[in-house]
């Protein structure tokens, strides 16, 4: 048990920092996912067949291919792609990209595909009258989206987004393969140096359970808050 204490001999403080790292990667990935979703949701709903195809390709491929494979693609492919671009501009040294950014970006692309589907469903379930009323009142497309559709869409998508958040949070455990020190990687290091994998992986499981439990509490509160007018 003293292995879990804080300070020089214990792993408590390291695990706490690793937990914060997991939380940071998850939130960053979720936000990157929102950016992707805000780009691809309009494409998915557009009447243009070609734009539809692009958006469907994105969501189908990302949701049909294992997360680990996507992470390997960005982990091994990311730095060589950047070095290729840099070599065009005459910079030929080795560039190593940040493990945090690679991880957050690859998980973000995955969570973006799920968020796209959630947003699409939410927009489609907004009452048609809302669109018609905003047309009649003479809103232009941009104001209509940001002032009328987006707030309703967010409220409707909170329950499903909480699932996406859970998936994203659990997917971050996979970035440990890229060497980013989050919960999983820290437990791996601790298990290796103390030869007590059972203890440390169980602690990792408990930490993840705590994160999912607390975030569910938080999301439930949010759901009640945003539903108070309905």
């Amino acid at each position, binding site marked *: 048990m003293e292995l879990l204490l804080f300070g020089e001999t214990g792993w408590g403080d390291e695990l706490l920092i690793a937990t914060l790292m997991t939380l940071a990667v998850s939130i960053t990935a979720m936000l990157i996912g929102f950016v992707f979703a805000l780009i691809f949701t309009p494409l998915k709903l557009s009447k243009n067949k070609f734009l539809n195809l692009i958006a469907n390709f994105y969501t189908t491929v990302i949701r049909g291919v*294992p997360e680990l494979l996507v992470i390997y693609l960005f982990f091994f492919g990311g730095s060589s792609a950047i070095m290729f671009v840099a070599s065009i501009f005459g910079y030929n040294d080795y560039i190593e990209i940040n493990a945090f950014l690679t991880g957050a970006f690859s998980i973000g692309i995955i969570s973006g595909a799920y968020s796209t589907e959630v947003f699409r469903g939410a927009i489609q379930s907004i009452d048609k009258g809302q669109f018609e009323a905003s047309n009649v009142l003479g809103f232009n497309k941009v104001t209509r989206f940001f002032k009328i559709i987006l707030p309703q869409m967010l409220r409707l998508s909170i329950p499903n987004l909480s699932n996406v958040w859970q998936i994203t949070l659990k997917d971050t455990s*996979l970035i440990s393969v890229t060497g980013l020190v989050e919960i999983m990687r820290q437990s791996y290091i601790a298990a290796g140096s103390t030869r007590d994998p059972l203890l440390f992986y169980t602690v990792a499981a408990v930490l993840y359970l705590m994160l999912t439990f607390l975030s569910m509490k938080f999301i439930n509160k949010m759901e009640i808050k945003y539903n108070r007018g309905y």
Partner: protein
Amino acid sequence: MDLDLILNSFPKLLSASIITLKLLSVSLMIGMFIGLFFAILRIKNNIIFGKIAYVYSYIFRGTPLLVQIFIIYYGFGQVEFIRESFLWIILKEPYWCAVIAFALNTGAYTSEILRSAFQTIKPGYIEAGKSLGVANKIIFYKIQIPIAIRQSLPAYGNEIILMLKGTSLASTVTLMDLTGVAKYIISTTFKPIEVFVIAGSIYLFMTFIIHNLIKFLEKKYSF
């Protein structure tokens, strides 16, 4: 694009996908029984067993699959009495460790899917059975279970696809499944895009087949 690499690695990846399919089918079969067992515990009105089943599904759905595999593969090997018992024959093999982790994980999700299916069965079906004088056991096996399975087909189809993607984690415990071989080829050739395209297409093809199979079953057993 390196066409030679694509042609060379395609057969390797294809033969590795057999291991992926094996892992998937074995763990789904075991997981189905686990899921059915815990779903029944949940719907019987026994508070203690219901709580146990709830905690089981909460733990396995709330933690990443990677942690579960690592606990079983690295963690259990450390315990003295497991290493001396007959369990060690199974637990020393990475293949069976992965199967156990996958089966327990998919069992938790399956139990939730089946539980909600059991709870949405119209009480009229059960009442009709009772008024016709059918024994409770037969009502359960011949009416409730078939309806629940039909109800849960769409959700279970998603679960199969999630599990297919989950099997890629077997590569972290030294198993050479599709993702394991793909990673090996990527790290020896440093051509991630080509390998991703092939491995990804194989996974997508499997997803496509599963999706259509479930659709076919839904149509066949619709009522």
